[in-house]
């Protein structure tokens, strides 16, 4: 679970990486890991510490699919929508998942338990279709796998 914004802790994170060459991505990753997203406060702090404009930092944050401006749900399910998974009925399984959890791609369930996101290949293509739940790989998914996921996320 990510913590609430804390200026001192965030400054620590930034300063840990600051001397690295091209430190911005490692900083943003660690800030997001600690606080669940890259908030406007985070952007302000990073810009100040790295001597960049806020627009520059925002430009980077918004470019990459991984960085969130809002925290995700307690659990994050990334479902592969790329070709190998498509060839194994992945789209049907994915649709059933969205339906089961009552969300669209990128949405979080109203209770905040689960965010479902599309991803394009997890490198599990020989065991398609696949997904990743909180960083844990899952493959050879079937409609029954959805119940398993639901149990894991408490829904």
């Amino acid at each position: 679970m990510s913590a609430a914004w804390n200026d001192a802790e965030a400054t620590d994170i930034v300063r840990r990486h600051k001397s690295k060459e091209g430190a911005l991505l490692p900083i943003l990753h660690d800030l997001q890991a600690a606080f669940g997203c890259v908030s406007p406060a985070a952007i302000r702090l990073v810009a100040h510490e790295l001597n960049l404009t806020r627009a520059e930092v925002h430009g980077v944050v918004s470019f990459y699919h991984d960085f969130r401006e809002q925290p995700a749900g307690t659990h994050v399910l990334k479902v592969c929508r790329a070709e190998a998974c498509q060839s194994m009925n992945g789209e049907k399984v994915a649709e059933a998942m969205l339906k089961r959890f009552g969300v669209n791609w990128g949405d979080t369930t109203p209770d905040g338990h689960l965010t479902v996101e599309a991803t394009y290949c997890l490198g599990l293509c020989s065991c398609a279709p696949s997904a990743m739940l909180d960083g844990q790989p899952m493959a050879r998914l079937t409609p029954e796998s959805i119940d398993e996921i639901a149990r894991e996320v408490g829904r």
Partner: protein
Amino acid sequence: MIRIFVPRDAAARAVGADKVAAAVEAEAKRLGQDLQLVRTGSRGLFWLEPMLEVETPQGRIAFGPVTAKDVPALFAAQFGATHPLHLGKPEEIPFLKRQTRITFARCGIVDPLSIADYRAHGGYLGLAKARSLGAAGTVEEVTKSGLRGRGGAGFPTGIKWKTVADTAADRKYIVCNADEGDSGTYDDRMIMEGDPFALIEGMTIAGFAVGATKGYVYIRSEYPDAIRTMERAVSLAEAEGLLGEAAGFEIEIRVGAGAYVCGEETALLDSLEGKRGQVRAKPPLPAHKGLFGKPTVINNLVSLATVPAILADGAKHYADLGMGRSRGTMPIQIAGNVKQGGLFEAAFGLTLGQIVDEIGGGTHSGRPARAVQVGGPLGAYFPRALFDTPFDYEAFAAKDGLIGHGGVVVFDDTVDMAHQARFALEFCAIESCGKCTPCRIGSTRGVETMDKVMRGERAEANLALIEDLCQTLKFGSLCALGGFTPYPVMSAIKHFPEDFKRPPLRVAAE
């Protein structure tokens, strides 16, 4: 004592390898049996994963696909040939026996986080050889091997290294491209999780050859297992003095942030510099002005991880394999709707039909294989009529395709090729870095137009529009994301025209 091997590869874990490993430990404990459990990489026989191996006086014996529930019975049968999951010696399984494993010689066999194991299986012989040849001699040897970049473009690795070696600078870099964004591919991932020291040694050799002291491995964030294993491997190598100041070469792991285009080398460099991952115009080449403006070798992970074996066994051994200008071996990744999906390293020259029908065993569904996409999301779809195409850079190019990073994704006859063409355009729209108009905006127009085709709306005129758009993408794009999207789109239209002739949809009654 009993020694058991269970993969820690992410795909094996995704189908239950951790549960199998836990069950093995629990059962050994219950039986009071002394156990050494080794978590290896995967051999790449993914339809048999989780594949468990046990050490016997005759060598290792494999069982698979194993579930946690099977484990007590395996112990009860004393891992004998009578158990229904018994596969015999892994090296004798035809899928593995037919391979020529050079890059993947150790993967699935060694403990990926044991330097002792790595050395016991030929590790660090390549670096020793490089040192004896000297820097220029090493570059020469890589050139002679005929190794071409495995990231997709197939550029000769030795020539790239020579350019960097010949460019004077106070600082140079080695960058490993481990972004592996192409769908249907996973060999970079397998090496990182199964034989990470091969990459570390390969980068160290590259650094020695061109005079670079710092290396970066840029790994996509979708690979948390690979990131963890690589970070561990780097610190283990540092602890043994194989990396770090004393070794004259250091490596830092960097993590991408979910942008396909960051696999493109100049976008990757911008991303490493902490910027938006936008493609840079060339020239200058990264070899002249790369990371932070310094001469940089940027290579795909497999290119780098193959170098130690090339040096250890000599360039000739590698160059003697293959066909035409495609020398050596290619790790072919067979995926999608296929019976025997997995990694198949072989000399160039197998036909696509051999790969799909013989090695892959046909489709998983048992229905006819209808289309095969080779080379990732920017690769062409080939019909059965092109199954005689040999796996070779030039042969695929001659058929308006590409082998790219070696992914082979099989589709059965339920595939809708108009849907696949639409997806290729949609993917381009999602992942465009935004620099070129045709790629940024044209792709979205393409999706809309394809929707019309699929609804049967003026199909012919709209297909002509898509063809025009593909021409614009091909010639008006700075990089292959826009420039190659026409491959999947046009190949689908050309080889599967019947899927694009749709009756107009009737307006649904309210």
